[in-house]
């Protein structure tokens, strides 16, 4: 298999947009191609992610549309949907297309637009990513899924609502340093703890927002990347799946798919958790970051809450997690999120992250989770 590098990244401002998903992706993709310093015609394929376009925009077949709006109407396109892990899944497949020798330059990413519909509609559409036979009829929502996980984690390990609140405070503090973030405003522990319950024990400020946005990456084979001035290498990328049914999870206080995806990615990369200098992990809810940092091997099971409380995961801490502000403050356009996380790690490893730069970062990790913890991708990146 050939080595693969990320040579270009592009991310729109996250927040509310009056542009369509396909337009948002095309804008991010044009930025990524410009950043890569390649001719647009060098792109040989598009791997595109979007989740709710059929519901929010009455728009399917969005791959060719995005390629058309980008100005590359004849490249082959494929659309991916794996809930919130969508564009990280697309990324893994784009890596395989280059690693296998099929293509030398592939464009990958995604976009989402949901702020054009009411919150209750967006909540419904996102709930389509849970099972439609048992879970949706019971009224389970995504905050509900992570509330079940949070309760199990609190019961098993003694994790507190205050520890979860520390994750929100930290990621908002990081978001202030990211001009692309949806929220660039610090919040206090009291603000989180006094916010209204959405699904007990999760409160409004434990939850990431609904977000519009797009993100894109240009991937290249080693020979193309070597001619580029700042390739960031894909050291490993691994996908894991777990049962779709929440009631079938062996232990609600763990995400076993995260553990398996991490083990696969570390093995491919020849790295261990202690090699990671900076990580972007899937903090759709504060408890999700806590469980992720345990499953990725950064902290012992049950101590992810303590890590947030002690500041170990803050910029300047022993392992900065979500310097971009994470899904919590940067925002979570679900079809774009995986690519946006990778764009942040690439920016960090290039040393171009400005005020949120993790000094001397050489190895970075991204972790994206989809649906009822059923889909998880972990990738590792390094610089020359």
């Amino acid at each position, binding site marked *: 298999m050939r080595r693969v590098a990320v040579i270009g990244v592009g991310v729109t401002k996250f927040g509310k947009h009056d542009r369509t998903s396909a337009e948002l992706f095309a804008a991010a993709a044009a930025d990524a191609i410009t950043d890569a310093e390649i001719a647009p015609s060098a792109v040989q394929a598009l791997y595109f992610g979007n989740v709710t376009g059929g519901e929010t925009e009455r728009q399917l077949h969005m791959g060719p549309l995005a390629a058309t709006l980008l100005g590359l109407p004849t490249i082959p396109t494929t659309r991916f949907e794996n809930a919130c892990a969508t564009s990280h899944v697309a990324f893994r497949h784009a890596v395989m297309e280059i690693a296998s020798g099929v293509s030398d330059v592939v464009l990958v990413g995604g976009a989402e637009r949901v702020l054009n519909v009411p919150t209750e509609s967006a909540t419904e559409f996102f709930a389509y990513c849970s099972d439609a036979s048992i879970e949706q*009829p*019971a*009224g389970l*929502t995504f905050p*509900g899924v992570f509330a*079940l996980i949070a309760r*199990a984690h609190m019961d098993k390990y003694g994790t507190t609502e205050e520890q979860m609140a520390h994750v929100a405070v930290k990621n908002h503090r990081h978001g202030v340093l990211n001009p692309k973030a949806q929220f660039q405003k610090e919040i206090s522990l009291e603000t989180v703890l006094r916010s209204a319950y959405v*699904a007990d024990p999760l409160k409004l400020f434990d939850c990431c927002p609904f977000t519009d946005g797009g993100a894109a990456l240009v991937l290249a084979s080693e020979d193309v990347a070597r001619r580029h001035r700042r390739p960031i290498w894909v050291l490993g990328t691994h996908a894991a799946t777990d049962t779709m*049914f929440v009631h*079938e999870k062996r232990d609600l206080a763990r995400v076993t798919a995260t553990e398996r995806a991490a083990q696969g990615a570390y093995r491919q990369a020849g790295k261990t958790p202690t090699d990671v200098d900076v990580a972007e992990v899937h903090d759709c809810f504060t408890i999700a970051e806590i469980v992720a940092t345990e499953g990725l091997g950064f902290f012992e099971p049950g101590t992810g809450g303590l890590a947030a409380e002690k500041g170990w995961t803050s910029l300047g801490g022993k392992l900065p997690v979500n310097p971009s502000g994470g899904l919590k403050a940067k925002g979570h356009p679900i079809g774009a999120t995986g690519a946006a996380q990778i764009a942040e790690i690439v920016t960090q490893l290039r040393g171009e992250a400005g005020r949120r730069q993790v000094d001397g970062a050489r190895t970075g990790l991204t972790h994206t989770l989809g649906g009822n913890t059923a889909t998880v991708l972990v990738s590792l990146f390094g610089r020359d």
Partner: protein
Amino acid sequence: MTERVINLKSFFEEARAGRLTGIRCGGCGELAIPPKEFCAACQQRDWRPVPLAGGGTIVSFTVIRVAPRGRGGEVPYAVGVVKLEEGVSLLGRIVDIPFETLKGGLPVRFRPLQIDTQTVIGFGPA
């Protein structure tokens, strides 16, 4: 054998009549809900339906206060994962138990619910 011994439709028809049904693997004895083809534990395709008594205890729960479209009139409502006494778990709506008394380990009992025209798995006081 290409026809499953029980499918989702018949699982919910039985549940609607108050009969909770699982499937037990003839290969390894694994108990599962809902029906599936191969046993994830031993890879056999040798299921038989087994009636479940309906009693169990809460594993985890939440009170949903922001609902999907069309369900706003139902909030707040509790949803939980319940471990049935046979050892298999199931997710459902928890009804007729004050929210403040909900906790892990609390005994509950299956009851079918009808919400609009849909059969929903429910659990009430044991």
